[in-house]
């Protein structure tokens, strides 16, 4: 097992290298660079800038160098000094910007994942065991609604509900009076009061998908001969279901770790913008629009790393859960 994990970590190195190269390349693909988009914004607002000064800025930022030189300088900075480069737009080191955002992103992602698991497991189990019952049909309908309604609409509706009926301050993670306050019990309660909206919205489609997957998987497993074997032993029905088929149908729950994390980080940008969440999505979006290449590149690199770690964790958990993977 230890050898397997070590091997997987070794495999991650070339993968990450490839991903960083590709992401940097994609950021560089559109014509122009940060300066040209800055100039365009400035001339839109009627300002002008001396061409000589533009050339000076270019050489200061290193934008006049070829692509591969820029890339290796950036990568070398990360590897040697943990320096992810400098954000042109924010005038700050990228690492400072990212760590701020990554913390809240991870918090919301992990809570959403827990929400997805906690809600979809009992419903999926119920739907499979009581297939074609009224309850199953109701949950199926809700599930399809969860899949079909765009997240940002759900976000707007929940914000309206929270504001108009519950009288909450909505948007962001904290009420204005707590935003810059030091940590306290009240701030924590305020955080919880804000968190439920993004968690429900972000988790809704994942929950609906996992309910469907669990229902389908468990329905298949319930018809397998080993379930009949368990019944023939004289086991009570709830033990028959929980010990045998559910255990096997759980695999997709664990593999969900691998795909939910990147989905939560990159797929919910619109929700994060609507809800004004301080997560990675909006910042990444902004960085891509303004061609703030070191910031965007570092984000994509970190997201890739997170995805790979998520995959690794889910694979290790799967191996622990299923001896066919561990020993087969």
């Amino acid at each position, binding site marked *: 097992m230890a050898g397997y994990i070590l091997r997987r970590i070794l495999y991650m190195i070339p993968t990450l290298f490839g991903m960083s190269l590709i992401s940097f390349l994609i950021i560089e693909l559109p014509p122009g660079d940060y300066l040209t988009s800055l100039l365009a914004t400035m001339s839109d607002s009627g300002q002008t800038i001396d061409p000589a000064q533009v050339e000076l800025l270019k050489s200061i930022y290193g934008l006049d160098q070829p692509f591969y030189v820029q890339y290796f300088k950036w990568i070398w900075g990360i590897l040697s000094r943990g320096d992810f480069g400098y954000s042109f737009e924010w005038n700050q080191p990228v690492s400072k910007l990212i760590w701020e955002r990554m913390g809240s992103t991870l918090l919301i992602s992990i809570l959403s994942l827990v929400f997805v698991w906690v809600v979809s497991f009992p419903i999926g189990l119920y739907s499979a065991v009581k297939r074609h019952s009224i309850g199953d049909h109701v949950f199926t309908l809700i599930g399809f609604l969860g899949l079909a309604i765009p997240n940002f609409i759900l976000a707007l509706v929940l914000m309206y509900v929270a504001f108009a009926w519950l009288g909450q301050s909505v948007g962001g993670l904290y009420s204005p009076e707590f935003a810059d306050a030091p940590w306290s019990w009240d701030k924590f309660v305020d955080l919880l009061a804000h968190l439920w909206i993004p968690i429900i919205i972000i988790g809704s489609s994942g929950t609906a998908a996992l309910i469907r997957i669990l229902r389908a998987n468990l329905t298949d497993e319930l018809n*397998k001969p*080993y379930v*009949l074997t368990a019944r023939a032993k004289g086991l009570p029905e709830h033990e028959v279901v929980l*010990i045998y088929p559910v*255990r*096997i149908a759980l695999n997709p729950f664990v593999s969900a770790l691998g795909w939910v994390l990147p989905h939560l980080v990159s797929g919910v940008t619109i929700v994060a913008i609507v809800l004004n969440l301080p997560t990675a999505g909006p910042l990444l979006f902004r960085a891509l629009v303004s061609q703030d290449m070191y910031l965007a590149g570092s984000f994509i690199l970190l997201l890739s790393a997170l995805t790979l770690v998520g995959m690794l964790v889910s694979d290790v958990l799967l191996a622990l859960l299923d001896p066919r993977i561990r*020993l087969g």
Partner: protein
Amino acid sequence: MSGLPPTQSLPPDVVLSVRDLSIDFTMHDYILHAVRQVSFDLRRGETLCLVGESGSGKSVTARSLMGLVERPGRLVGGSILLREGDGAVDVATLDPKSRAIRAIRGKRIGLVFQEPMSSLSPVHTIGFQIGQAVRLHSGLSKDEARERTIELLRQVEISNPAAMVDRYAFEFSGGMRQRAMIAMALAGNPEILIADEPTTALDVTTQAEILDLVRRLQVEKGMSMLLITHDLGVVAETADTVAVMRYGKVVETGGVDAIFHAPQHPYTRQLLAATVKLERGARTVAPAGEPVLSVSNLSKVYSTEGSFFGRKPFSLKAVDDVSFDLHAGENLGIVGESGSGKTTIGKLLMRVIEPTAGSISYRGADGAMREVTTLDAGGLAAFRRDVRFVFQDPFGSLNPRMTVREIIADPLVVSGLGQDRKQVQARVAELMTMVGLDPKGMERYPHAFSGGQRQRIGIARALALDPRVIIADEATSALDVSIRSQVLDLLLELQQRLSLSFVFISHDISVIRYFCDRVAVMHRGKIVEIGPAAEICSAPREPYTQSLISAVPSPDPRHKRMLNRRRFVAPVPA
């Protein structure tokens, strides 16, 4: 026990009495009467065989004895009286989720299924699954249950039980899995053992061992056994009493000798005739044409190289230095147990997979020999027009979204001959008539046909391009015995008419004996013996072949073969 008070009494030696049992399956638009007014008695220490072909209702009947009829099935009438002291409890009246019936499952009646792989959970150890059954009915502690589990594994002759108890089902061979299933069924010391096709998925020598084991345990523990099977050979070797089922009804019940030697019902006679027919060869004169296919020193090695990340190198000789000729008009059988490499040979002959070494040469219609292993794409296409394949699974090998006409015409279309719609239609009709199907069915989809009819469709497809050689891989294995002999007769008749040669791959010795002129016996990738079918099947020379032939159940209770079989101990490979 909280069951109903004993209401009825049974004759002293009867442990289980089924009377007028009826089970319906409520489908979308009709009701299927799967079991109709079935009655039988199971006596103490006796083996009762329920015999029937697929769909006769024998499995459902057996499961209903433990209250295990699943939706949409429903018990609609009759009684199942299980002895309880001096009285009896009617299992049919118990709620399938009640405590009373759970006390019967495993404790009074044990159950063994056909498919030992899927009947065991893949993610729990064997010891966990058996130990659970032990604890459920005994109140032993975890450690005591483990000891008892190891003891049970020892009783079913699993070697090194203390280590095997912590293994998973996929680490067991087929026969060992079935032994583990039997150990599980014995965990609660039941008085009755129900075995539902317990050896159908196993090789013939493994089948003989498992039947031996069950017989020994039954005598030791004084159990009664209800054995469900479609194989009259197994019945003759094991049964005391036989009940023959068809379309949900018991058509005939009687002692094993009476059933085999004085059958009353026409269906019993038909079933026996179909089985006994396969005891002899259908081929009388051995054809001595020139070789159409000549295989020499053919080998296929599957191997993976070791990798930088620590995977161990691995290599398996699936086919090991095999040579044989197929003569024109000849039926050559390739027989062997699972893993012997017989299917790999079929694939190599079609060049679906590439051989590691050796040559296959083929004599075309023009009389010239060609080397198959080096054919280019065009030559291979021509070769595959002449040499066709018939598959085992009549369900999986037909595309459910194509009509029968499209399926049969497919080879014509692929080879570019299917341009003219009228002509294709005429050819499909001709082929369907040839295999005994009504051409009116050509616009229907495969699901509308039975297993035997589907296999005929597969044969028609193989014949579409006027082939000269047909390779049939277990082509009759999925069929019931009466259908099986019909399909074999069809193939023989077609051979006469179309001057075909067959390579017939099967694990079933009776089918090989009936159909083939010569047989090659395979074991671990090698041909151990090759010769005339009659000779190999009656007087084999090699020890392995002797053990294989003697393990085949004989469909005559007066001449039981398995009890006196020869055992083959494989030499340890160097």
